[in-house]
């Protein structure tokens, strides 16, 4: 028997849908055409507010100014064959283009599930959204015939001495990094992307975080981590293209498969901080462990955050201990210059652990041209550092962020798979 109430409601919904469709066709707000790749292709966006272009030689979300929110979601790929894998990358690319440009989904018959989740309303500001796709070492096993295409330095993240390894919630075939200035923009994008790719991807682990970026001169930003210290002060200047080519982007002619040029090695580490223990540690001890003044962020021999520590005149560690985190991470010698990398992490807060202590820490993310000379070399110097007592790396993985898409009809992973 038919239900008259339901029929009426359905009709009302259909009318509403038609209304939205009208708006959708003409576009919401001021549409803008953006051309970044210089080849005549343009990208159409609903609003230029916070729009970060998708197209370019490199993916966004790497040298893009640090947004206030970010999440990483790692997936196992269940695509049956190479063809399905190509389909997966194509559909992820299409959705990425849409959400980065602030396009909500297509308007459908209201008797159907809606395309967009509407958690951001139909009018979406791009909100500095960036989506970055990176592939894990396991994607290059024998499933898709990609073994020979594996980036030379891509390895499964090993367990470093202070790690508490959780293989089930680390690694993964594919990692999606989503960053924006609001948390819900990231959530919206994640749900759109996952819906697009549900038949190929299953979540392996994910984590979201936040930071409050602090602009420094020369295209750099630093943040405060949950230990209360400035982090990223000595980061690379992302506006310096030559520097980025030297330290971040794989270059044509590198000892790497050809398709990798323009991509970047991505190291992700989930580092739990024992914040209660840290908070009850003497200020002076904290400063000696990190190597910076807690309040100003200045190195111990300087007065400003941007002052560069002069370890060369402090060989006996009278000012900055040899075991200080910043001295080990970046000894500022010619020999260690090759290990410079671009950090782009977030803080996380996940409630609490069974011992009643807060579950907080750092979602460490960094990009580099050479994983062995970059993150791995830095971590090997940090092994045994004084800070280890207060931190516990519990997850993450090593990935390769795909090169960008320069053409309007291009897709992420195209050079790898075609």
């Amino acid at each position: 028997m038919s239900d008259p109430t339901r029929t009426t409601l359905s009709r009302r919904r259909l009318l509403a849908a038609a209304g939205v469709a009208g708006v959708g066709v003409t576009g919401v707000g001021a549409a803008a055409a953006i051309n970044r790749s210089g080849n005549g292709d343009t990208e159409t966006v609903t609003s230029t507010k916070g729009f970060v272009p998708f197209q370019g030689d490199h993916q966004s979300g790497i040298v893009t100014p640090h947004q206030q929110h970010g999440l990483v979601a790692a997936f196992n790929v269940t695509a049956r064959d190479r063809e399905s894998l190509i389909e997966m990358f194509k559909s992820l690319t299409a959705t990425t283009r849409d959400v980065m440009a602030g396009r909500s989904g297509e308007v459908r018959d209201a008797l159907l599930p809606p395309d967009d989740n509407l958690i951001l309303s139909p009018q979406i500001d791009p909100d500095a959204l960036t989506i970055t796709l990176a592939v894990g070492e396991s994607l290059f096993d024998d499933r898709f015939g990609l073994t020979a295409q594996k980036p030379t330095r891509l390895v499964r993240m090993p367990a470093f001495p202070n790690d508490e390894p959780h293989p089930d919630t680390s690694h993964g075939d594919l990692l999606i990094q989503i960053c924006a200035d609001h948390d819900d923009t990231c959530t919206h994008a994640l749900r759109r992307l996952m819906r697009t790719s549900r038949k190929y991807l299953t979540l392996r682990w994910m984590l979201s975080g936040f930071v409050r970026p602090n602009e420094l001169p020369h295209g750099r930003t630093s943040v405060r981590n949950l230990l209360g210290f400035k982090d990223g002060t000595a980061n690379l200047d992302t506006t310096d293209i030559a520097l980025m080519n030297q330290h971040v982007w794989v270059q044509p002619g590198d000892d790497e498969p050809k398709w990798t040029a323009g991509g970047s090695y991505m190291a992700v580490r989930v580092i739990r901080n024992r914040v209660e223990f840290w908070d009850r540690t003497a200020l002076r001890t904290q400063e000696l462990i990190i190597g910076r003044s807690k309040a100003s962020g200045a190195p111990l021999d300087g007065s400003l955050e941007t002052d560069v520590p002069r370890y060369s005149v402090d060989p006996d560690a009278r000012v900055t201990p040899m075991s200080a985190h910043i001295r080990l991470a970046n000894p500022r010698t010619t020999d260690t210059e090759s290990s410079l990398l671009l950090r782009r992490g977030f803080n996380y807060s996940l409630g609490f652990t069974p011992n009643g202590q807060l579950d907080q820490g750092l979602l460490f993310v960094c990009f580099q041209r050479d994983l062995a000379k970059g993150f791995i070399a830095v971590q090997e110097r940090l092994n045994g550092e004084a800070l280890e007592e207060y931190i516990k790396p519990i997850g993450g993985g090593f990935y390769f962020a795909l090169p960008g898409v320069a053409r309007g009809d291009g897709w992420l992973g195209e050079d790898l798979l075609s």
Partner: protein
Amino acid sequence: MRCTKILLAALPVAVLVAGCSDDGGGGSAATEPVTVTLTDAGCDPTVVSATGGTVTFAVKNDRDSKAEFEILSKTPEILVEKFLESKAAGNFQVNLKAGSYEIICGAPSDTRAALTITGQGDVAVLKVDKAALDAAVTAYTAYVREQTKALETGTKAFTDAVRAGDTEKAKTLYAQVRIPWERIEPVAELFPDSDGVIDSRADDFEQKEADPEFTGFHAIEYGLWANGTIGGAKVDLVSLANGLDKDIAALIALVNGLEIQPQVMTNGAAALIEEAANTKITGEEERYSKTDLATFAANVEGARKVFDLVEVLLSGVNKKLDDSITKDFTTVDDLLAKYKEGAGYASYDKVTNGDRDKFKTSMASLSEDLAQVTGSFGLEVVE
């Protein structure tokens, strides 16, 4: 109160920004600060001196513009460089060894000050009686020796039972041998390599219990309880027992050769409680044997020992803190007493949720309080 200086090994320089180094701050501000004014001509006065160690500089910029204050070594190297806004004043703490230094006030060509540092260098100001603190360290060293002795005999008895295939006896001895170990754990942790092979938990390894690197007490514990038999398919208990003997002997030699510093003792008390509050309160440390309460109690006893030895000193510098710690220990002891069974403790399964909460809060309170003891004595933790 009389202030004494104590020699500390390899104390690096710490610099605190202005406003963070008042008398209540670092515990080492008891020496007179070296006062230097940046005038238009340069430094005033032009000759200054101080005793080696943590030296506080009280610097004022009388100029009409921002100016620089630098301390140079003889080489010359710039050891410290601080900028002060016009008319601003700030206190800086710098650790300096005996020797001659120069101070620049403004430009390098302005009148400099000669700085002479006398004395031994690397000294911090102690706020408690040195002889009494030394006596406490001596007594604590004797306690550590007692525990290493008990660990040595206990380990032998335990591993003998394992080698003999006597599962029940090995299980009984396991909880006992853990006690001396847990009482002095922070001292053992000074040797992370030994600590790693002896006391790692399965979580520290990629393949967890199946990991070939998983050795020591908890690997044997796993074999005895989770596998149930000695010589089970997965765990070769005899070779683990042989390895434990060797590793324990090596660690005991290291610990016995160690000259315990006062801050290792006082901070060790805090570390024991941190450890218990972090990993034992959840029942994850002794997850197979469920003997967590015994090791938890041993951590508390080890911390209590230190507290008993230094309490008279603490009551002299911070009576309130002393009273609070005394109360904290009583709360924890009362809770533990509820679960005493014979010579040991009940299985951790039997601890009610309400009591687990009480353990959490009392241990957190104890952690917060014990973390203040080292600094209250004027001791610095050197990593």
